[in-house]
């Protein structure tokens, strides 16, 4: 009897981030144009497993995703037990560029969701020439909070249960039950305070609106894709962001919420593949 083995390969890489040694897990599948994928807050690279097993993508793209420090199979830095985790824009950018350089990825296409979708905006502002294209899922320059994030990290509330409960409504009602609950399972597994620390970056650090005009989409194309059921980063938030960036392409995805690639991979595919095709056509025409 032969069991199905997926083509995804996982490994660890040692990086110095914020001046401290880190052991970072990453996985990949496919060959061709590097496509670096950035997971959401409080989750990890498993969110991209459906992209990594879709040959329509992996025949043309080397899909790579790391677990951020504190997330998934990447360990927090030594001494974490006496610290409060808090993600900042600068630390996130350093992580992405350090990882990219360590793997020798030249001008990768980069796709991020949620916090990963948000970070593509600073990447586009500061480092556009280092990327072949940027794709932001649930990407907004600014958004208002809708709950008190202190509920996410306190000893008298189960962190896994409350994190999943908070985000459960950000999955579209039409998403398949198994995909919905796998997405929530990953949220249930985040370490204490990790979601709260990620949200600091998402909400507090910082309002990107004043700098959107610095983005030049002729240097690096920018795609902003948001699910219609995402009430955290709403389609309107994304449209307002794109309105300040000449050339940014907005795609609003039907029957999708905040976690397109994991909550409904089939539905997401019909929106993602044309974007990837356009990027590939542009790169091969050069």
């Amino acid at each position, binding site marked *: 009897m032969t069991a199905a083995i997926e083509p995804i390969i996982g490994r660890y890489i040692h990086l110095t981030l914020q001046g401290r040694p880190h052991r970072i897990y990453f996985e990949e599948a496919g060959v061709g144009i590097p496509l670096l994928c950035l997971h959401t807050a409080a989750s990890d690279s498993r969110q991209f497993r459906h992209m990594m097993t879709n040959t329509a993508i992996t025949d043309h793209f080397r899909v790579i995703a790391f677990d951020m420090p504190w997330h998934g199979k990447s360990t927090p830095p030594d001494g974490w037990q006496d610290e409060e985790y808090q993600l900042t824009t600068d630390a996130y950018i350093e992580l992405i560029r350090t990882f990219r350089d360590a793997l020798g990825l030249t001008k990768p296409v980069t796709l991020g969701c949620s916090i990963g979708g948000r970070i593509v905006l600073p990447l586009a502002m500061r480092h556009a020439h280092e990327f072949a294209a940027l794709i932001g899922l649930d990407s907004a320059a600014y958004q*208002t909070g*809708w*709950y008190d994030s202190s*509920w996410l990290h306190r000893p*008298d*509330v*189960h962190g896994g*249960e*409350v994190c*999943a*409960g*908070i985000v*459960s*409504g*950000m999955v*579209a*009602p*039409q998403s398949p039950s198994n995909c919905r609950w796998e997405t929530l399972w990953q949220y249930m597994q985040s370490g204490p305070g990790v979601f709260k620390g990620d949200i600091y970056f998402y909400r507090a650090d910082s309002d990107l609106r004043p700098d959107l005009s610095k983005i030049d989409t002729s240097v690096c194309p920018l795609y902003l894709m948001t699910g*219609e*059921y995402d*009430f955290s980063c709403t389609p309107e938030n994304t449209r307002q962001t794109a309105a300040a960036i000449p050339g940014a392409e907005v795609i609003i995805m039907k029957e999708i919420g905040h976690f397109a690639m994991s909550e409904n991979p089939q539905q997401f595919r019909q929106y993602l593949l044309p974007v990837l095709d356009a990027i590939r056509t542009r790169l091969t025409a050069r």
Partner: protein
Amino acid sequence: MPLPDLIERLPALVNGNPAVLRRGRYLSTDMMIEVGTTPFYLSIVQGRIESLSRGPLVMRSWSFAIRGREDAWRQFWARHPAPGFHDIFALAKFGEFHIEGDIRPLMTNLLYFKALLEAPRALADDVPR
């Protein structure tokens, strides 16, 4: 189905669902759902809805309440709710629902309460989008 009839089916929907009861097995509290101007009081004991009373009832206490216009609840209980009407926090963010009181029981049992509050969708007709 008229909304009051839908709400009055809540105890049967929740108490007949072993997975929801398991989620709420350590929870005992009183909550209030206000639909338009009509409050409904739910008394929950170890995850079971022991009683559901239509108000107003003078001096009835509750730990937390969720209040919303009748139309907002109707849309929330559609089988496939429209964006923005599909989650209690979405409705709260957009000013349609008001979540008040001591919300600790809600936050410590969030998946239970979401399952409870969304249970009437199983009986609902679709609201056209």
